[in-house]
């Protein structure tokens, strides 16, 4: 039996087993702390900082997804400081990335009344869609750098190590060895990364083609090479179906 720890969250005094994260402790009494990068089955790296909470006596705010409870901790999950930080982080995110397929983040933006045009002249992270294999596309304009794909491809699941990072800071991007097309890497097309990607940055080819206005029959008609070479709004077969 693990030791029980007593702490107070938003005025509620509770007991949880030692080693519990603040996030899970709050969840146990129905207090939902927002998360973006956190995923139950991936290593938590505390990247997004949207889950921060205020802890009495602490100089900075604390990421609840990784911070463990301790005795007599006084936690505030919705203090003014917390709300303001979350709002500013959301404003930063939306100024950088195409969040059109991240409904959860869009909801948070509404909830925290974050201003999508808070940062005028902000350079957005713009990348061309990478369409280099028949299985899925990589659209890094939508990537929020949650690291999940890198981690499931590595020690969190697959031990394939096909992807990692390039650049650093704002220029960071998920990338392959010398930016090679996926088929030239160790990628085994297991699809784990697509499964954990929260933003539509990684997407099965079929879904992507459907979104682009293709009919399922049309996709079947495309040859493998055509499917591979296709880029958005180009190489679209005419309605007559004469594929040259």
């Amino acid at each position, binding site marked *: 039996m693990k030791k029980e720890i007593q702490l107070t969250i938003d005025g509620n005094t509770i007991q949880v087993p030692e080693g519990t994260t603040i996030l899970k402790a709050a969840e146990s009494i129905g207090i939902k702390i927002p998360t973006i990068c956190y995923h139950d089955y991936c290593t938590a790296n505390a990247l*997004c900082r949207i889950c921060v909470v205020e802890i009495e006596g602490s100089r900075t705010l604390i990421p609840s997804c990784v911070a463990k409870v301790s005795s007599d901790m006084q936690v505030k999950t919705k203090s003014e400081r917390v709300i303001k930080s979350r709002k500013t982080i959301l404003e930063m995110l939306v100024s950088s990335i195409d969040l059109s397929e991240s409904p959860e983040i869009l909801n948070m933006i509404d909830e925290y009344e974050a201003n999508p045009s808070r*940062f005028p002249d902000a350079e957005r992270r713009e990348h061309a869609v990478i369409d280099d294999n028949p299985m899925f596309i990589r659209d890094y304009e939508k990537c929020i750098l949650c690291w999940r794909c890198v981690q499931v491809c590595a020690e969190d699941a697959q031990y394939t190590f096909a992807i990692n990072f390039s650049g650093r800071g*704002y220029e960071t991007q998920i990338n392959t060895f010398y930016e090679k097309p996926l088929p030239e890497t160790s990628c085994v097309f297991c699809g784990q990364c697509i499964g954990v990607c929260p933003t539509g940055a990684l997407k099965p080819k079929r879904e992507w083609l459907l979104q682009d206005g293709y009919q399922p029959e049309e996709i079947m008609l495309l040859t493998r090479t055509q499917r591979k070479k296709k880029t958005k709004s180009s190489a679209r077969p005419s309605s007559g179906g004469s594929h040259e």
Partner: protein
Amino acid sequence: MVKFDLKPLSDSLLDFIPEGRSALLPALHAAQQLYGYIPEEAAHLIADSLKVPLADIYGVIDFYTLFFREPVGETVIHVCNDPACALAGSDTIMKVVNQKYMFNDSVENFRPQITIERAPCLGLCESAPAMLVQGKPAIGKNITNWEELITGGGSPPQPIVSGDIEFLTANCKNEHVTNLEVYVQGGGYSSLQYALSIPPAEIINQVKSSGLVGRGGAAFPTGVKWEGAARETDETKYVVCNGDEAEPGTFKDRILLEKDPHRILEGMIISAYAIGAKKGYFYIRGEYLIAYERIIQAIDDAKSANYLGKNILGTEFSFEIEVRRGAGAYICGEETALFESIEGKRGFPRVKPPFPTVSGLFGKPTVINNVETLANIPLILSIGVEAYRSIGTEKSPGPKLFCVSGDVQRPGLYEVPFGVSLHHLILDLAGGMKEGSTFHAALIGGAAGAFAGEDHLNVMLSFEDLRSHGLPLGSGVITVFDESRDMIDICHRLAHFFADESCGKCYPCQIGTKRQYEILSRINQNRIDPEDQQRLIDLAETMTDTSLCGLGQTAGSAIVSAMKLWPHLFKPQTVV
């Protein structure tokens, strides 16, 4: 495609194979040494030899700015662009270098062979404007002879080392490195001898009582840190010396390493004995090639004299040190990012806790100390706690090194007891302001610090007095500006520095430093939006409150302090 002769690389990799991934940075340095950059084929070979996934290798190469993944010129020139060098005209140097490179006929032959890089602070601020030519320092002022510059001629700058006292810097005033013989003649390694004759706990007690706190910026009590690691029962423990000095305006550790390497080694060996470590790592900033070579030499010499190695000075205690060269990443000065770097990874800081004394390098209990911190250790043991505490103030005991640069007569390294005034340091020791200029401001603590105005000249340089004035001591940087200086330009450069050096791990810093830089660029071009002040404040507050590590937490602090001192500079100018 060029074919490479990979034989020399595979030969040199033989030595690295037993170390596995931890030898990745040394292996990449070796490859770049051979080919001028890191060709894909070389990266592939290294990956196979050290058993590192290919994608990871690329991630590492692309993280560190000193590694090139594409061919570069035979001669690589780095021109510093940070505040101290900017004041001394680095923009002009950059232009001159580029012009010579582009247009000078006699240089036409060199043309394809030169690569010019805009660099962050090179730690040569006392000799500003600074450049590195093939990794070796050169003074921009002496750029008249172009061929000599390119062929690496000219001698490295001789720094001014002075002050009120010389407990730490006595050996740094020589033109040459203080070698083992000279160091021992001056009493060197006698503290080690003494330390080995008393129990480790007694050493820790003395270090604790001395009141020594870390000189790397965080000011954590050194003895308490050692005690924490000593308490751990793990068989394997490490000590690490942090010689990654990259805070803009700092050059103290470089001078200590270049001039008096044995003092730092002695401190490190004592720390290893105190906590029970058998192995240490010495991490030296990639740009500090001379310091790197001198430390390697010093380690060899110390080994032959049995101050290092097996059964040191006939005792049971054995200890060895491995040296690691960084590769261009300010963030690797952060202790956990530095561990990642030694482990052959991208320099991403880790989430804390766990703290290094519990789980540090390779997951083992680790003590990491700054170069200057370690330089204090032999001193404490040789003069004793009481004498040590008589230097400085009650709450900030000991000697302190300050790096003074910018618009003063004598930029240099100054050793003083804690508690002297800023006025004394700038106007007495550093010779006052340059001819015909008056003091306007000083940046205290480097890019991560804060600006002090004229009202602050009487502040005492001690932790307690600075703190009460809202100023950080940081690592002891003081960059001085006269009244003619464009403070917005300086803030713009600081913002550029952080945007360039953010590792990109956590969102507030990854995006916030970029947005902060964009706003400062706008202000610098006099296109100020009325909302910009509030945007800067919100960005700084959010970065400070939520960033994962100290880089993001301090990325807005100097700019916020400038907004407090000179609010009008950040408001739209009313056109007259």
